[in-house]
């Protein structure tokens, strides 16, 4: 992959194949942690951090361990194990050495253990036969797309607070409708193809 192709792939991962709006991965944090833009940004940063690192580690384990023992059919469970352990490790590391970041990420860090977007980023890069650098770039870009989506949506939700919808739409129904509309807006990118 040349540098141009790499950049195009990253651009595609952020906008065209946005994890939330076109693939529907990571919807639970997307709906759960998008009440305020600053917490949404915190979640996005935490996901970016973990997704990039887990992409690198899972690629190594897959290529050097699972492929050589012909155990590729067990990659899902192996990746879950790796991500859970990695998140735990990162949490301990941050707590000791970067307490400021640790307290900023707060509860979101352990929540990422069960974030399907992280797992799917790792699985997708295997599916697409990416090399190490491409995997890391793909995971990073996907996480950026996730961050973009959650922050934009948090901005929408701040405005929704002033709305006066019919009683039946209050709360989550309206939130889901807004998410759907936002996804439709993002589908405008879907015509673009770089392959």
């Amino acid at each position: 992959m040349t540098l141009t192709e790499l950049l195009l792939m990253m651009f595609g991962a952020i906008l065209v194949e946005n994890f939330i709006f076109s693939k529907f991965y990571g919807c639970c944090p997307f709906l759960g942690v998008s009440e305020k833009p600053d917490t949404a940004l915190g979640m996005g940063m935490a996901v970016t951090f973990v997704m990039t690192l887990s992409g690198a580690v899972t690629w190594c384990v897959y290529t050097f361990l699972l492929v050589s023992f012909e155990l590729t059919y067990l990659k899902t469970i192996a990746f879950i194990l790796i991500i859970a352990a990695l998140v735990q490790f990162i949490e301990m590391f941050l707590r000791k050495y970067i307490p400021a970041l640790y307290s900023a990420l707060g509860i979101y860090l352990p929540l990422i253990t069960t974030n399907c977007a992280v797992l799917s980023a790792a699985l997708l890069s295997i599916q697409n036969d990416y090399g190490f650098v491409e995997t890391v770039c793909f995971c990073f870009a996907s996480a950026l797309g996730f961050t973009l989506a959650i922050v934009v949506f948090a901005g929408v939700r701040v405005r929704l607070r002033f709305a006066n919808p019919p009683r039946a739409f209050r709360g989550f129904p309206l939130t889901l409708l807004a998410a759907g509309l936002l996804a439709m807006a993002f589908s405008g990118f879907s015509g673009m193809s770089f392959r």
Partner: protein
Amino acid sequence: MNWNAVLIPMGIFAGLGLVFGLILAIASRLFAVKIDPRVPQVMEQLPGANCGGCGYSGCAALADAIVRGDAKPTACTVCDAAATEQIGKIMGVETGKKVRRRAQIMCSGMGGNAHLKYRYAGAKDCIAAAKLGGGDKMCPNGCIGLGTCAASCMFDAIHMVEGAAIVDYEKCVGCGTCVTNCPKNLIELIPYDAKYWVGCRTALPGKITRTLCDAGCISCKLCVKTCEADAITVDSFGAHIDYEKCVACGKCVEKCPRHIIKSGEIPQKDA
């Protein structure tokens, strides 16, 4: 049956688990951060509602702050006297008697008393309305009555009844969320058993208040003169009750020419 097809993956996954387990075990030793044993103890006493009434992001953050000494052991507004005392014991300090407080909306302008500036037809939210010339009431300290306090209350203790925010004293825990959310700063936390309050927060001379509202405090000081306990003061403009001194005799209620010293039946319950 090919046992290798089962044993090799099992072995590899056991190995993976073992390696990760070992790394984590070593890491937990290596990156160990000393946690004050009092933090989980205090945490146990806190209600765990994560309401944010104390000003921290949640109960865990407050427990941390109490142990660090940044917050007082009484900082939690929700937990009862027994739990507060327990926290005091853990911290080794005397907490004293905790006064349960409740929210009260200090305005009598509902029901057409307050004169209107314009007819507001925007979003049903006081903060949004306050952005438009300070709300629809002439009085700069008038309740807009769109229920931002009721919406902000996490304990379902404030309800809008005919344009007036009514506090359910039983449910109110005195967390103060409504106090910070009211754009007009009309809500005050007063002692739970306070029977009387001044239903006006005007900061203007009586003559002007009279033109703005039919029920505003005109700073006539009749209540000050009537009060035998010296509990009422009129600082610049608008009467205020000092609950440390108030003996709840109720004489001011009768004297007030604007009928804005109000009383409420407080359900008797241990604070």
